[in-house]
């Protein structure tokens, strides 16, 4: 017999719906969402392409062929060549690995630190809460990219620093979400019950409250990866991130800017790559949001 939906001491609370399990319900909604399907498919294609770069890439991305620079797209070079005769398609495939991993790692950093801070802040309240929220307000006082810029300027422009900088500038939202969830659940019966039973604070936070964050967190993280990819490539575009000849979508766009008038393909394709990657993630994120909790729709 299927367990009727009820308050569980561990994990999710979902209202019963004619016997279907909650996970299936989510997937069903997701499958019906056009944007999630399109986004997911596109994202999968892009991710596979960049992961399989070594196999798919027709040329060596940093091998120059200086005597024939700036070739327009042709059969030999589907996306043309850049100023040193390097194949742009190969550079986009290899560059995507960096651009997208910056997004993922940065969000990883932001989510982990942000959620922990938010959970702690909301659960313990009082002074801890005040201090942490003040710090968050401080982070929010700097417009996003400026904070990342300032961090990179201070620590130096390397790949790890780039990930840290983009990550730190994204922390506030995760703190807020985590804290909000804790606050709304703190006084619920299942939490009080857990405390009566003798669970430690840690157990309560991580085993009882945290799972309830998964839904909004997933949505936030998905959309956050898109934003992080943009911020990371913006920094590289400005010259403060990954530097040539190592390909990355942002610095390829910067190189292309110089030749915009006469060799539009050098800037067009990297920018298109960023846009498609971000678009697919945004579509997927929208779909996820609708599926996980339709009430969250803006």
């Amino acid at each position: 017999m299927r367990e009727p939906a009820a308050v569980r001491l561990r994990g999710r609370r979902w209202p019963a719906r004619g016997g279907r399990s909650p996970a299936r319900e989510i997937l069903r909604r997701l499958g019906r969402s056009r944007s999630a399907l399109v986004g997911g498919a596109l994202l999968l294609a892009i991710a596979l392409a960049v992961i399989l770069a070594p196999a798919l890439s027709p040329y060596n991305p940093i091998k120059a062929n200086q005597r024939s620079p700036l070739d327009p797209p042709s059969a030999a070079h589907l996306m043309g060549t850049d100023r040193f005769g390097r194949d742009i398609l190969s550079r986009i495939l290899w560059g995507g690995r960096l651009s997208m991993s910056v997004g993922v790692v940065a969000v990883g950093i932001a989510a982990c630190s942000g959620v922990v801070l938010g959970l702690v802040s909301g659960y313990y309240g009082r002074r801890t809460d005040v201090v942490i929220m003040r710090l968050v307000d401080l982070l929010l006082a700097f417009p996003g990219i400026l904070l990342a810029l300032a961090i990179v300027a201070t620590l130096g422009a390397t790949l790890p620093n780039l990930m840290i900088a983009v990550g730190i500038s994204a922390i506030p939202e995760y703190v807020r979400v985590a804290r909000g969830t804790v606050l709304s659940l703190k006084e619920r019966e299942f939490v009080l019950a857990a405390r009566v039973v003798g669970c430690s604070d840690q157990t309560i936070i991580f085993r009882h409250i945290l799972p309830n964050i998964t839904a909004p967190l997933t949505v936030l993280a998905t959309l956050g990866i898109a934003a992080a990819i943009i911020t990371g490539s913006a920094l590289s575009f400005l010259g403060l991130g990954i530097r040539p000849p190592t390909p990355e979508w942002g610095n390829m766009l910067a190189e292309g800017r110089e030749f915009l008038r006469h060799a539009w393909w050098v800037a067009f394709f990297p920018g298109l790559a960023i846009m498609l990657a971000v678009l697919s993630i945004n579509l997927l994120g929208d779909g996820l949001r609708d599926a996980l909790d339709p009430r969250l729709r803006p």
Partner: protein
Amino acid sequence: MLRYIIQRLLQLIPILIGISVLTFLMLHLIPGDPVLIFAGDKPMTEERAAEIRHQLGLDRPLWVQYGDYAAHAVRGDLGRGLRSQRPVLDSILEVAPGTTQLTLAALALATILGMTLGILAALARGTWLDTAAMTFAILGVSMPVFYSSLLMILLFSFTLGWLPATGQGGVARLVMPATALGMISAAVLARLVRSGMLAVLRQEYVVTARAKGLAPRVVVLRHALKNALIPTITMLGLQLGALLGGAVVTETIFSRPGVGRLAVDAILSRDFPLVQGTVLFTAVAYVLVNLLVDISYAAIDPRVRYQ
């Protein structure tokens, strides 16, 4: 109302202090000796380094240095740019109007475009217009500002020759940067306005109003719009940060003088006093503007004041 304003102003103080502490710390978080930044290109012996360190007060305890920094900052003395030797505040104020102009233009554009699209989409719900508007919206959010800028330059400057690609001065030069910058906020706003209006259009009192026999146009304008306005203003306030950040890239691409470009150039040329100054200035300005937005928000919606 006054109590609310005073309350917010008091809350402002620790944040301002926090901002100044962070920007102050920037100099000391750099890997390596801060003295090297100020040394310029002269060969340096240890004694000379110690001398410069003493001259600049870098050998004093951190909190003393901070006090000095803050005291000067409050008076408007943010030091001198390393390359130009001009007071940092002067350099910033020289270019600040450019950034303000760009940001305001982008904001205006975002508001007009966003609201129009959102309203149209809500009214034409389910039709091709709705889909088109929302497609534009999601594309707008997904296209980074540096890409849309370049595409616009390619189309409107190089191919069609309609608009100048760089510089400041005149409406023609403002159109593309403001559009590129405002497009993202417009997209976000459009989606928000659309759902805000849809939510309101369903609400009972609107149904009641229609039942009373008022003309449909009146219904929409008076009730739905007003209630959709509140989340709009909130969103605009939040978008301000995105706009300021986007201004950094936009100013660089369109070669417009502005605080963002000043910051980037300062970072690229390791002009640390200038970097600190621009970061501090921008953060403070941002916080103050947000405060203004919040206050006007409170003026419109009394419920906010009592939170």
